[in-house]
């Protein structure tokens, strides 16, 4: 890529997003907030995959792995939000502390 954008630019961008996602996961007690943090982390992983694919000579393996990550993120979001809604029906709250007992 022209203009002096190197692989390191993308790696640093991805690690900033990863750190923000980690911070979100650690600080939220809101279950949906935790899922949002996980989505940010998966996005940063995808940026890494595509950056290495681009600067590794334009092979497609990295892009295929990124598509698998997106697919698994969709499945994870569906299951996670279904669990959140089930918890909300049982406990009338989505505070993850409320569901720590594992008793229905």
């Amino acid at each position, binding site marked *: *890529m*022209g*203009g*002096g*954008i190197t*692989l390191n*630019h*993308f*790696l*640093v*961008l991805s*690690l*900033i*997003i*990863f*750190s*923000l996602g*980690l*911070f*979100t996961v*650690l*600080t*939220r*007690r*809101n279950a*949906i*907030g935790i*899922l*949002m943090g996980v989505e*940010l982390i998966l*996005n940063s992983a*995808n940026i890494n995959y*595509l*950056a290495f694919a*681009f*600067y*590794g*000579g*334009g092979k*497609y393996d990295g*892009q*295929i792995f*990124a*598509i*698998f990550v*997106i*697919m698994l*993120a*969709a*499945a994870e*979001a*569906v*299951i996670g939000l*279904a669990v959140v*809604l*089930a918890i909300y*029906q049982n406990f009338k*709250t*989505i*505070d993850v502390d409320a569901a720590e007992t594992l008793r229905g």
Partner: protein
Amino acid sequence: MLAQVIFYALAALTVGSAALVAFSRNIVYSTFALLGAFMGAVGIYILLAADFVAMVQLLVYVGGILVLTIFAVMLTAGIGDVKVSNRAVGTGPAIIVAGVAAIVMLYAVMRTQWHQAAVFTPAPTTYAIGNAFLGDYVLPFEVASLVLLAALIGAIVISRHEVRE
């Protein structure tokens, strides 16, 4: 020069939105800030010559996951009541953990001499990715469809109302 401007604009959009997701006290603001983060990532993917992945991201993340998240936020009333802080890990320790992780990764990124292949001319990727999915990656591709089917059924089973006679 133009690539640099575009990269920094997209990076600012992505990081700014991600920061809003991380630091906003209102879950609804966080959800809508997630839109900016995903759109910025789409731009970054296009910058990395991954046109098909960018469109998949747009369809699945923005069109699917984000809408699903907004639905979940709206369906769970009183969602703003849950405090942003975590009793086990407060904001301070969380900043320390995330900061240490960031510094370690930054050190690793800066110290490593990455192998960089010769610059290539970007080409449309859809044809090659489609061939790879039905060639080298056919088994993971089929397993992925099973995973999605299991997720579909699992979500229905988990979230439906139990009606007992």
